[in-house]
């Protein structure tokens, strides 16, 4: 049982929780994730770690309300408990001095990007961050990303904040004006796919962090499997980060829809019960 000590809605559907998890706060590294479960009847939900405070013994997670479990999570308040929090899972990000790092975050993907941006900056890199979302309200963690970035570019689909356009528009601008040594892209699968296609043209090494369907998160079930360089890999134990140019995004996108019908049905039943 992990107590919620802080909660903040970043936007209508994006919520941040600071949760007591002292062991994870100590052991987590950038790139790791956790799995949570809400109550005895809940499902296991993988969520990325945005921050950790070793002294307070807490980790910060960010979730977007999209289905039953994330709605239930968003309804929890300070003082409530998350039934299970397990982690840190996955391999941490390889942090090194690459030169110029282009960090691209889409939607809630900015949350796992934050600790990587921080670590990359601390490793001596020039960090240019691009935060992208549909509109202004969905741009999250901007101030904190700014703290560890040499430059921040905001992109919104509707132009309500920053520049109008998708993330790749911002990427093209940066790549056109300066040498980029490493790109990190985290966000919806479709966004990562296009980030990968963009940097592939310029042969810029690119890392993506995949957010596939998982059950246990410890290598046991294989629900998270994805083809990388023609081989089936497990996101939970082989990833979550992979060489973006080798990921079969079309297969990944297809697999992420594996439970769409059941998820929709469950969500409608949940909504009706409210």
């Amino acid at each position: 049982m992990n107590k919620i000590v802080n909660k903040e809605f970043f936007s209508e559907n994006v919520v941040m929780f600071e949760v007591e998890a002292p062991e994870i706060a100590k052991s987590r590294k950038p790139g790791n994730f956790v799995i949570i479960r809400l109550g005895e009847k809940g499902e296991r939900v993988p969520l990325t770690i945005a921050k950790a405070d070793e002294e307070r013994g807490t980790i910060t997670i960010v979730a977007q309300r999209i289905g039953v479990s994330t709605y239930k999570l968003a309804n929890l308040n300070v003082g409530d408990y998350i039934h299970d929090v397990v982690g840190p899972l996955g391999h941490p990000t390889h942090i090194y001095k690459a030169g110029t790092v282009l960090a691209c975050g889409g939607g809630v993907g900015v949350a796992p990007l934050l600790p990587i941006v921080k670590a990359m900056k601390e490793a001596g890199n020039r960090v240019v961050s691009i935060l992208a979302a549909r509109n202004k309200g969905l741009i999250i963690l901007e101030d904190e990303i700014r703290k560890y970035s040499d430059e921040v570019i905001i992109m919104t689909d509707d132009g309500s904040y920053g520049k109008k356009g998708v993330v790749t528009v911002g990427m093209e601008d940066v790549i056109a004006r300066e040498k980029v040594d490493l790109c990190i892209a985290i966000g919806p699968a479709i966004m990562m796919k296009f980030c990968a296609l963009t940097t592939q043209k310029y042969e810029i090494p690119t890392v993506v962090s995949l957010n596939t369907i998982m059950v246990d998160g410890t290598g046991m079930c294989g629900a998270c499997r994805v083809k990388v360089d023609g081989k089936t890999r497990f996101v939970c134990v082989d990833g979550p980060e992979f060489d973006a140019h080798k990921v079969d995004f079309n297969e990944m996108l297809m697999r992420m829809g594996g439970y769409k019908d059941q998820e929709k049905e469950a969500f409608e039943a949940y909504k009706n019960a409210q």
Partner: protein
Amino acid sequence: MTDYKSEREQQWRVDLRKTIPAKERTNQERVEMPMQDAVARRSNNLEVNLGLTAEMAVKESHRCLDCANPTCVTGCPVNVNIPKFIKKIEAEDFLGAAAVIKETSTLPAVCGRVCPQEKQCESQCFYTQKLKKPAVAIGYLERFAADYERESGKMSIPEVAKPNGIKVAAIGSGPASLAWAADMARFGYDVTVYEALHEIGGVLKYGIPEFRLPKKIVDVEIQNLAKMGVKFETNTIIGRTISLDTLRERGVKAFFIGAGAGLPRFMNIPGENSNGIFSSNEYLTRVNLMHAADPAYDTPVLRGKNIIVVGGGNTAMDSVRTAKRLGAERAMIVYRRSEQEMPARLEEVHHAKEEGVEFMTLNNPVEYIADEKGRVKQAKIQKMELGEPDASGRRSPVPVEGSEYLVDCEGVVVAVGVSPNPIITSAVEGLDVDPKRRTITVNPETNQSNIPDIFAGGDIVRGGATVILAMGDGRKAAAGAHQWLSSQR
């Protein structure tokens, strides 16, 4: 070591042997296990085997000849004193029978249900060996004694030595770790069992279905360990949440790694990543651990009219019988060898057939075909024939060229084996791990690894075995750890 001979000469045993002539004992037929009706059980998740009545158990115990040389015991990986517990049943001291089993077995109610007795104790029984008759139903009797004790409300807790204050830790909470923890607690150690998932029990919880092993039975056994002083920590991944070194700093003096064979294997054939194709681990975990079949729980599971399960082991049988219970009209086993080579227990194959499972042996999937949404709709299956015996001694399957045909299916469960879980072995630097099999290498006498304070057993050493072999490893590793820790003082 138990002195079977002198125990056998105890007066009560001598007297009991005389009550019924040997001839009469051997003429008696083996008891039949009462079972739930095959049609009824397809639509429920209740246990299939109902257990013997006291009357049936006593009657079956008469068949045991209380042999001078009880070969059955040699067939048991944890050396349960089989003749003694059976004779306790004959004397109608059922609690006494349970106590005898618990001298050497941590989980009697579990073993009585899931052990392959026909390959172990019962294969070594005098009836099987010499009389060429069905063995004494040792497994059924073990289950009876354990169930009787549990239901009596007078469960005995094994005696533990005076606490020695030495901290030890088990990693993983499946049968190997539970057996290790029980013995270490008996020796007086301060034992903590760490589990990555949210429930204790490992494969007993996520893998073996309710209809074969009710979860409440597992929980009672775990509660008994807790009463012996064993502590349990769920949601804790050693090597990730807490490192081994951190535990060493906190005073843990010895470890047992029983993290199991968590990593499912796939066949790497075209279309295998289509939606609707799962590992047996995923399928069973969703249903058993996450209760996906119960609408009150949030985890979903695929249901379909036509479900193919690939493989011929116990996990394949568990999966296909689960599919039947989730409403599949056609639940099919596709296995590349013949039924004779199937590693599954005979009883499970038999139960599956009774429940209407189709067996497509000497068949092997070579490709899956998906619809426009990426969902599997057909399996391309190739016929096989048996060739020369392979390394395992079984005749190896050879594809019949041009024999491919299509089978409609909405779901496929791949149950072709598992590999050891990589998390802990990659987190412990310098641990001797087999480069190919990814199993931990241990001293076969003590189950000690190349790192002196680390012991290991179960599937992470064997690569894929049974509950009872895992428990046997746990016990051996406990003896090894106790000896090593004692030599360190």
